[in-house]
């Protein structure tokens, strides 16, 4: 978009400012889906921006910068999950929209089931599905973000979908 036009002139500080404006929110949400913890998600994304700033002389390209940020967010989320030994601290849920309480309660239950099934998947399978169905990445972009081959993306995806299908049908 218009980002690309000014990109060649970016220094590391400009890059942080521009990429923050364009992608901070969606990256925090991505991390929150991987971690199920909004506070840690923000830390993970902030650390990723700091790392990108440090690596700017190597990144130095807006497309690669976003790819770098995604890789970093996925990796750091995985590490944070590994470190988390205590019980999951759930992000506080906002109250459901009062006007459509009944409908939204059903929907919320439905979503909660899907999210719970997603959390039971092995990390890479969960990452593949979140990157696909939340971040709308292509197979190649997912491979790049997770640091695995496209073949592995395919096998993780098909295994994950099969597990999810069985899991959700069992609880339906």
């Amino acid at each position, binding site marked *: 978009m218009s980002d690309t036009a000014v990109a060649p002139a970016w220094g590391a500080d400009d890059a942080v400012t521009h990429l923050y404006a364009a992608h901070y*929110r969606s990256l*925090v949400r991505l991390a929150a889906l991987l971690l199920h913890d909004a506070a840690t998600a923000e830390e993970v994304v902030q650390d990723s921006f700091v790392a990108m*700033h440090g690596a700017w002389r190597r990144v*130095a390209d807006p497309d690669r910068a976003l790819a770098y940020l995604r890789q970093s967010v996925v990796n750091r989320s995985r*590490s944070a999950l590994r470190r988390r030994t205590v019980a999951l601290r759930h992000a506080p849920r906002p109250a459901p929209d009062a006007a459509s309480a009944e409908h939204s309660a059903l929907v919320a239950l439905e*979503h909660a089931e*899907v999210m719970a099934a997603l959390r039971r998947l092995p990390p890479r399978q969960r990452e593949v599905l979140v990157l696909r169905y939340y971040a709308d990445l292509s197979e190649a972009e997912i491979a790049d973000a997770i*640091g695995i*081959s496209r073949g592995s993306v395919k096998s993780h995806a*098909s295994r994950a979908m099969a597990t999810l299908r069985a899991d959700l049908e069992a609880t339906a």
Partner: protein
Amino acid sequence: MTTPFPPDDDPLAARLRDALHTEADMVTPSNDGLQQIRSGIEQSQRPWWRHPAAIAVAAAAVLGLAVGGLAVTLGGDDDSGTVAADQTTGPDTSAASTPPESTSGPNPTPTARDEVYVYFVLDDPASGPRLYREEHRLVPKDVPLAILALEEMTTGSPVDPDYTTLWPRQPIVRGYTVEGDTATVELSEFVSLGAQAEELAVQQLVHTVTANDNDVKRVRLLVDGKVPPSGHFDWSEPVSRAPMVDVQGLIWLLTPTQDATVSSPVEITGYGTAFEGTVSWEVRRDGSDEVVAEGFTQAGANGEFDEFSDSVELAPGAYEIRAFESSAEDGRPLHVDSKAFTVE
């Protein structure tokens, strides 16, 4: 049936998308994110080897390396990339005289480059995950090449998209010292993998260090100052390179490099081993299955590794080349290494 991602009108896919977006929308980042990032950047501005605590470590590295003839300048106060480009006395600069080619992607400044060897991993269906080497050209820093290479291994990306790294993609390298033929690499984090992958990850690191520091034959690993936490192995002793035939990619295609632009005739070079030493190659037009050129050449035979080379004339355009061993049983390609490249 084997399509990985079902079409978007698949009910499960739709359910998943819906749930993820609803869940995501509930997360609203705080307003001070940018401020937090800026203060994080400020704290990280000094690279670790200039932090007071690391100076002692780095100084030891200098001592260790000075014996090998590599002068490392420390203590310059600005890290704006002004480096005593005095690498000419280094052990690894023989390659610096080769003409530059496009290798490790976009680089902002056409200044001097330090060439480092970084090992990555390719999961070869026929022989399991193995190590493959890439040459990366990086902006020089006044640190030993082995540090530059380890940083690239942990925070950079392989140029070949088929390759991957087994290490967390994070700045986890904290220290590097050399004593005699043994390097000690200090990390802030270890891999968390199965036994086979963990062993290969350690070999990935050992190969990367020893490829960039001729004095080093063995590598001791420390994670937060202690023996690496492993459920599989005892890593308290220094580790040397495992036998090539156990860990190294059986066929490495070294040129053309991934995404390179080259002129015809195209030099095909590589390194490897194959049944009776015969390595086959095929060139396809990018994105097509049609083979436009093929041939075979001689590498090392039956577990002995050796260089191979060949050349091919190609019209301008985008191509993919694959080098492999033809199965003695049924002729199918084994141990494939592939590169996309352009002929100008």
